[in-house]
């Protein structure tokens, strides 16, 4: 039991920084760029991904001993698609505005590489507990980066965060930040910054 605690914190922090899905593994780029026009859609997307990741990791981890190798991927896809459909229905029912903003990017969680990658790399090899921790860590890592990106873009594009004006008077909004170009360049610079920080540390 003693050596369990470090493993858990290890697994948890892996998703946050060392193996952060966006910053380090460059997975799940498509929603990262598409939905980060503002913080709110970014947060909604992040939470949906956490939900799907958690459910799929639990299911995969529970049936990992029964899985046949060649039907494995099919099984993962089926489970993920099911939970994405549920998440989509939930958003449509209780967050109709966000559902309209996110549009087809909610179903696109199905092909978000993070989820299938975690199912394959972690959940199909580890027990329930580790898989859950892993899903939460990875999910939070994903969500935080999404929110940072969304925050920067919303701030520069409109001068507001969560629709509350925060910038000084006379601030000129940079509409370009809300266009695709803003997404690509902001993420590129963030990745560059992360690379620089890591290089300094080591």
């Amino acid at each position, binding site marked *: 039991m003693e050596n369990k605690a470090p493993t858990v914190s290890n697994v948890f922090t892996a998703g946050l920084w060392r193996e952060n899905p966006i910053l380090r593994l*460059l*997975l799940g*780029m*498509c*929603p990262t*760029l*598409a939905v980060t026009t503002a913080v709110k859609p970014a947060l909604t997307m992040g939470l949906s991904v956490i939900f799907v990741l958690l459910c799929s990791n639990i299911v995969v981890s529970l049936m990992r001993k029964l899985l046949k190798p060649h039907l494995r*991927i*099919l099984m993962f*896809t*089926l489970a993920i*698609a*099911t939970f*994405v*459909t549920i998440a*989509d*229905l939930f958003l449509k029912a209780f967050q109709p505005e966000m559902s309209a903003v996110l*549009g*087809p990017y909610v*179903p*696109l969680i*199905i*092909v*978000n*590489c993070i989820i*299938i990658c975690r199912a394959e790399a972690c959940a199909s090899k580890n027990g329930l507990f580790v898989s859950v921790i892993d899903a939460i860590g990875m999910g939070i890592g994903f969500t935080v980066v999404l929110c940072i990106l969304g925050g920067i873009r919303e701030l520069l594009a409109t001068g507001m965060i969560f629709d509350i004006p925060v910038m000084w008077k006379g601030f000129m909004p940079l509409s370009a930040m809300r*266009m*695709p*170009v*803003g*997404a*690509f*360049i902001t*993420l*590129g*610079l963030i*990745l*560059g*910054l992360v*690379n*620089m920080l890591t*290089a300094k540390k080591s």
Partner: protein
Amino acid sequence: MDKIYVLLMAFISIVIVNNLVFTKFLGICPYLGVSGRIDMAFGMGMAVTFVVTLAGTLTWLIDHFVLMPYGLEVTRYICYILVIAGAVQLVEMYLRKFFPPLYESFGIFLPLITTNCAILGLCLFINLWGIDNFIETVVLSFGAGIGFTLAICIMAGIRENLKTADVPDSLKGAPITLITAGLLTLAFMGFAGMIK
């Protein structure tokens, strides 16, 4: 005549104006990962074109002849992803059996394609745009593949030249690719408004 015009416009719009990579952010993963060499990028693009045409058409057929008449729209996403996975599997088997040389060149990319967002994304967008014309669906699906190939080949060409460029250390690799892609989207924005 009008029909041909509509189809032509649909094709140009999906290849250039509404390019999936530059305006909808679909298929970014292979776009960043594979596009290091032009010949590889072209092979990947062709494989995607092949699968996306098949998948777009099949999902449209299933949507209109199975899901909608029986009110099963809620299972749409599951059906789509299964169709795509199945199509990829079939294409792989077919190529291996009948066109070994083609399989050699496509083969490595095929398993990757199932999780390529461009494919599922296109199927979803066809549904979202409410396309109810079969031929238009085929043209759009094919055009999406061509658009993807175009984007990935342009990027590969730029990256081949970037190798010799003096890029700051921390920006090497993915960051500079993303920034380049950002500038490319600006260039492609110039085409918007072309289609009426």
